[in-house]
């Protein structure tokens, strides 16, 4: 394997799974050229005139779609940890004796540990998407045949447009669909909210299969996925475990330290002048993030102002803001609880977004860079404000990127992290895996203080008389190293064996993930 150093000094392979790779050149430095990839031309004359595309089983649909060795199959994570369809899909592929599939999920969850046996027996060659939990461990220990490719949600869209990933068959889990293939996620027992992550697949894949456990007569509205892009419709009894698709309720953190971080963030946003009439921000569904919503709500009420829009990750806390008139709109990429699903279904101001609308690198503009502030998590950060979201300090790959990289483009990107976890310092000299360049990260908020990126003189100036604990990142790091007993050792990894690469939003390679030596 040949390596090249990218602009941030990270060694990255020049070829991965037989595909040439371009090392990261810097934020917004690389722009691909040529034409956007496109699917083959089809004609409606080839489809049933009565619109009935129903076939009797998933197996039947896969056969009709021409499933064969080495194909790229895509799935989506709308069903989250309740997804059983993807597992059934690979059971079926396995039963057909098909091998070397490139699995292209928008994200994976612990429920997908079922697929480890197919990674072992060669049914799946490698994963391009995210490798969470058990799949991450499997990959990190060097057990996957091919090399994993980690992309952001926006990067996934870009990779399809750039032709890096050509999807042979897209399998879309649809909580509600009609026989024509129109589908949505807001109705049905498996309702999950929006189906935005499947948009690119429905438009660009050669063949598109919609699988539903709630088949309704035409028309299925809203049609988040348009049947005009769909080849086959399969009806099944169940898509998965509804209790794990969305939570009944999302719960705010009770940890006093995380609440303190949330309070600092809300106060910082206010004192930095971000919280004002018509502002916008990116919310999330993590416990700390939910607490930020509540603290911001108090501030907004006290000041008598409202937001113009809030980007979700929607939850009941966000829905309450909408319903209490504290924001005009929720622009929602992913719905986390039943209140979110209900609101998206019933409230026209709760709008589904897709990676294309939210943060597509090949779009004519970027919503993400129009957002006033984004609050994101990380596994690690470093003294140069770089951040890691995919691996831990022991070198193990355990999380996906999600929309995280894309959201870094906001006007004020805030990373919320504890300064250490047990005995694991979170602010390092250098992150284990680079996922977010420090250039885009403005503020790191810990329970021990708030560090502002020195390049953001405007923010430093805005809070210079604040009572908030504004500190340098090195000062916080030093304190935590003293608590933990010095700087930690580097993870024990085999630098000759890359198990996965991390892509930047433009398709270049930001960093390599190495095999962990056990």
């Amino acid at each position: 394997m040949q390596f090249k150093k990218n602009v941030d000094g990270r060694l990255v392979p020049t070829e991965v799974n037989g595909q040439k790779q371009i090392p990261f050149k810097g934020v917004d430095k690389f722009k691909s050229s040529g034409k956007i990839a496109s699917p083959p031309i089809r004609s409606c004359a080839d489809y049933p005139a009565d619109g009935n595309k129903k076939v009797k089983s998933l197996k039947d649909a896969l056969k009709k779609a021409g499933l064969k060795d080495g194909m790229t199959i895509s799935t989506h994570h709308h069903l989250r940890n309740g997804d059983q369809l993807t597992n059934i899909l690979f059971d079926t592929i396995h039963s057909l004796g098909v091998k070397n599939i490139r699995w292209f999920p928008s994200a994976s969850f612990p429920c997908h540990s079922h697929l480890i046996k197919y990674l072992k027996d060669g049914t799946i060659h490698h994963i391009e998407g995210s490798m969470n939990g058990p799949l991450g461990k499997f990959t990190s220990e060097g057990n996957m045949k091919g090399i994993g490719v980690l992309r952001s949600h926006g990067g996934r869209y870009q990779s399809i447009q750039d032709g890096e990933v050509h999807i042979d068959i897209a399998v879309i889990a649809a909580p509600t669909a009609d026989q024509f293939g129109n589908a949505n996620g807001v109705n049905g027992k498996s309702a999950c909210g929006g189906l935005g992550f499947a948009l690119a697949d429905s438009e660009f894949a050669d063949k598109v299969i919609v699988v539903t456990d709630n088949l309704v007569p035409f028309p299925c509205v809203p049609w988040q996925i348009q049947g005009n892009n769909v080849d086959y419709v399969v009806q099944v009894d169940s898509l998965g475990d509804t209790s794990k698709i969305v939570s009944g309720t999302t719960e705010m953190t009770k940890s006093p330290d995380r609440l303190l971080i949330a309070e600092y963030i809300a106060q910082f946003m206010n004192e930095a002048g971000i919280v004002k009439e018509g502002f916008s921000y990116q919310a999330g569904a993590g416990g700390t993030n939910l607490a930020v919503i509540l603290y911001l709500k108090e501030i907004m009420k006290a000041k008598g102002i409202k937001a113009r829009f809030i980007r979700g990750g929607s939850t009941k806390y966000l829905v309450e803001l909408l319903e209490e008139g504290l924001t005009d709109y929720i622009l929602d990429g992913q719905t986390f609880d039943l209140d979110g699903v209900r609101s998206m279904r019933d409230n026209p101001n709760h709008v589904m977004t897709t990676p294309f609308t939210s943060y597509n690198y090949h779009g004519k503009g970027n919503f993400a860079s129009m957002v006033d502030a984004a609050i994101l998590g990380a596994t690690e950060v470093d003294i140069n404000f770089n951040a890691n979201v995919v691996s831990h300090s022991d070198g193990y790959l355990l999380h996906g990127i999600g929309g995280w990289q894309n959201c870094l483009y906001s006007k004020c990107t805030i990373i919320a992290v504890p300064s250490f976890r047990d005995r694991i310092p979170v602010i390092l000299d250098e992150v284990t895996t680079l996922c977010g360049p420090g250039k885009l990260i403005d503020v790191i908020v810990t329970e021990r203080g708030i560090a502002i990126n020195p390049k953001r003189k405007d923010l430093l100036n805005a809070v210079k008389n604040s009572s908030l604990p504004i500190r340098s990142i090195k000062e916080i790091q030093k304190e935590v190293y003293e608590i933990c007993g010095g700087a930690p050792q580097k993870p024990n990894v085999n630098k000759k064996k890359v198990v996965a690469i991390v892509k930047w939003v433009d398709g270049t390679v930001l960093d390599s993930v190495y095999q962990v030596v056990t």
Partner: protein
Amino acid sequence: MKTDNKKGWAGKRGNNVRSDCFVEIELTKGKGIKFSVQSKVNSMYGQDINDMIIIMCDFFEIKHAEILVEDNGALPFTLAARFEAAYKKIRPDDSREFLPSMNKNNFYLTQKDRMRRSRLYLPGNEPKFYPNAGLHYPDGIILDLEDSVTPSEKDSARYLVRNALCSVDFYNAERMVRINQLPMGLNDLKFVVPHNVHVILIPKCESAITVKDVEEEINIIKAMNNISAEIYLMPIIESALGVVKSYEIASASDKVCALAVGLEDYTADLGVERTNEGKESFYARSAVVNSAKAAGVQAIDTVFSDVDDVEGLRASIIEAKALGFEGKGCIHPRQIKVVHEAFAPSGKEIEKAKKIVLAFNEAEKNGLGVVALGSKMIDAPVVKRAQHTINLAILNGLLTKNWEKE
């Protein structure tokens, strides 16, 4: 004492353990030191953990032993405390102590009349709560060796609390320890007195003699260790008899800085339910306030035990303040802010206090012995209370330190 005890252990094990470890030491014959470490942070601090075990074996001259460490991210002060506690189960008479070096930020002192609005209880044997406790800025933190520690963990907790006093930064909170009831509590003192403890809380105090016994033991340990810093006492009144004796207790020593009331035990002693209205404890609370004030010390109220009930907490503090209490126990960091807000003076109180202090300063500047505000004479206690109000206002960010100039 058993001398044939070859095996000792301390700490916590299991999947739910965080920031703690389990250490087991078995002395062997002639096989050298063998140890096995399973650590959640092995890839980051594995070497450090191994080094510490070797250093501690050297220190206690352990030559032959099998040592097992199951670590779930214990910080060094915890690992050392667990090791020492395990070892001392085998050699309880070994008086050597393996002390972490004193954190450079931990040398600050306290004052008898400092503000004690909030005091946060930390269970003595739960190290995970220690490092961040001070970040919530309580006026005091209490490392508790008494009710929050089960009898089997009392020994381990002493080493942990001792090490925490040395190495954990509590960010200028007053450093308090609640010892066990006497006589056991007297044995706790040598673990904490040499390590800049500021206040000793004496639980279930029922007589002046108890206070004097604690004071005497502290003085002996201070003399042995050449310590000159003051260590104050806060007796806790938690029984019917304690209430009756509260003045005697509050005035037993000039080291008593405050008198606290504990209502869980008190209501049990009366044989009644503890209610939210608190009619059953009204007498006890008032009596404690009265005794404290009669002895010239602070009166501190009991804890509010429903962490989720913020409004209930606020109401209970407003009531406590009206009765004459100046502080409240906290069992969760999120209560601290509410306590501080509720003890904060109102705008009207601040304005009045400002006028009094300004008039006093003016009179002093002019060499006048008598202070008058309008037609009213102001005497010393009024000025003192006004200054206290001003201090509270500054602490709560309601006034700046330079308010007189503004």
